[in-house]
């Protein structure tokens, strides 16, 4: 039995030596925001709602509002719980799917410059090494990618993708890695026949803009970020562009039991891998500057903006989505144009309310793509926040 005892001893030693203190947290710095020059009429009530959201389970929240009273911002909770670093408006929040609005804007800019036709088949621009993953790509136009009517399947609901992402949280996916998850899958519906939101559309759109411009991210920086002086908006300027101390830590209720864990490394790696459908981090102020410029025809012209607002309809006949622009009916029948975003470790909203001439951006560092009791508790508060803003 001595050999058996020795082998167990070896195994135990191995297990002890291979065990490491795995950490997901990233360093978030304490940042000091510039003094706010503007105000907002319902600021006190909004602060109360934000504090309630934190009390009910959001680690940290940051908001910015641009109204006739100027720009006002506020944060509540923590950018990093472990070190008790307060969330501040100068922290960078994950815009998540709001990135689609930026890419759509860049695409319309290309159309204005005569470098792209919205109704051309995507194969006009994309090489076969990309189109070979897409069923009936010859029937799909650039516009169908922009307004989610292509029928191309979603890559991120593939069980193989979800399993691999969870097991390999530090894996950097290439765009082609994502496309492999739709390889061999048929279109969900005839191209152009209906609207169905898919992240894959914007992944492919980013690759298409890459072909035309050489680098879609560089083009977005050149045509959008730099002219608008968006110095607190980061998107793929360098491979480690998310290694910025102002970036918030991210938390996720993995098992839908109200217990959260730090998933910052996974969130950051995931977001840095995503192109077109995600990938931008910014301050709420910078996000609002962008939407304000877009709505005031400072980036694209009136005709392009009108195309952006050519709404696809929900199944109930209500407007849903234009070209990268979401149409949402908020409390009080207030129409909002903009986009929302959700990820494993963050959530965000960026909207313009034309009837109030008001812009609003919010970012939280709790994952909202999976359901859980925390999200259940927070949803009514988000609705209350909308009502308070639009009062």
């Amino acid at each position: 039995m001595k050999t058996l005892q020795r082998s167990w001893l070896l195994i135990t030693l191995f297990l002890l030596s291979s065990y490491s203190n795995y950490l997901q947290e990233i360093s978030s710095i304490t940042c000091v925001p510039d003094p706010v020059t503007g105000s907002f009429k319902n600021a006190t009530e909004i602060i109360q709602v934000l504090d309630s959201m934190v009390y009910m389970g959001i680690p940290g929240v940051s908001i910015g509002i641009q109204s006739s009273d100027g720009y006002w911002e506020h944060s509540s909770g923590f950018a990093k719980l472990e070190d008790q670093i307060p969330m501040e408006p100068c922290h960078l929040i994950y815009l998540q799917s709001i990135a689609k609005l930026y890419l759509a804007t860049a695409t319309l800019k290309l159309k204005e410059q005569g470098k792209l036709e919205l109704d051309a088949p995507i194969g006009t621009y994309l090489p076969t090494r990309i189109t070979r993953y897409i069923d009936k790509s010859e029937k799909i136009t650039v516009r169908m990618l922009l307004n989610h009517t292509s029928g191309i399947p979603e890559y991120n609901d593939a069980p193989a993708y979800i399993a691999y992402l969870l097991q390999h949280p530090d894996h950097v996916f290439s765009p082609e890695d994502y496309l492999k998850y739709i390889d061999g899958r048929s279109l969900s519906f005839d191209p152009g026949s209906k609207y169905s939101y898919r992240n894959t559309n914007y992944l492919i759109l980013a690759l298409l803009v890459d072909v035309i411009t050489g680098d879609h991210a560089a083009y977005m920086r050149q045509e959008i970020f730099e002219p608008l002086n968006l110095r607190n908006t980061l998107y793929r300027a360098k491979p480690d562009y998310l290694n910025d101390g102002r970036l918030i830590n991210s938390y996720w209720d993995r098992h839908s039991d109200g217990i959260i864990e730090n998933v910052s490394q996974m969130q950051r790696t995931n977001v840095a891998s995503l192109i077109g459908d995600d990938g931008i981090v910014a301050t709420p102020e910078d996000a609002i500057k962008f939407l304000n410029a877009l709505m005031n025809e400072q980036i694209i012209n009136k005709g392009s903006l009108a195309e952006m607002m050519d709404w696809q309809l929900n199944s109930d006949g209500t407007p849903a989505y234009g070209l990268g622009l979401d149409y949402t009916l908020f409390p009080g029948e207030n129409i909002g144009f903009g986009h929302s975003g959700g990820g494993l470790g963050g959530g965000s909203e960026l909207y313009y309310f034309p009837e109030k001439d008001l812009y609003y951006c919010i970012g939280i560092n709790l994952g909202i793509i999976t359901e859980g009791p925390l999200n259940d508790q927070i949803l009514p508060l988000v609705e209350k926040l909308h009502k308070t803003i639009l009062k």
Partner: protein
Amino acid sequence: MVRIILITLLVLFWSISAKSQELEIGDYNKLPLVVTIQFHSLALPFSDLGLSNFGIGLGTEVNWNKDHTLVQKFGISWLGNQSVGNRLILSSQFSWRPRLIDNFFTELKFGAGYLRANRPTDSFKLINGAWEPIGRKGKGMLAIPIGVSLGYENFSENHLFAPFVSYDFLLASGYSRSIPLVPETLLQIGSRIHFK
């Protein structure tokens, strides 16, 4: 990785070469100790295979028939997986174990078990509006394991050890509201040890 392979080879070598003193035939299959080293992954079947996420398992089994071809297995495993959290699995599987040639056997098995999935990092719980650290507290789930094995056993020469390799696929329920089922896989290398 080199360490894993070396230890695996060492255990297999000892398993195959070590022999006990003579055993009574009737004693051979009475509650053997089953010892395994295991490699865990949160993955679909036969994807993402690799010798990582090391774990160990202990178990035993009882025969349903005299031919030792129908077996009920009981086991407990601890699996280290720093990406998705360590696992503790308690399970029982019914096994059909037909003989192949030259004392080699194959096995098809299925059953049910309890899977305790820890979190990979320290976690927090909201208590009166403040987040309190609670360690890596995990979640218990029902698991349905199915698997296949290939092994060697020698009744006639009264070998003490019966080495085998096994591949199990587990479907764990209740991971979260949005992900009700998660696939997990186990590559197991081990041996039954038939004490006298």
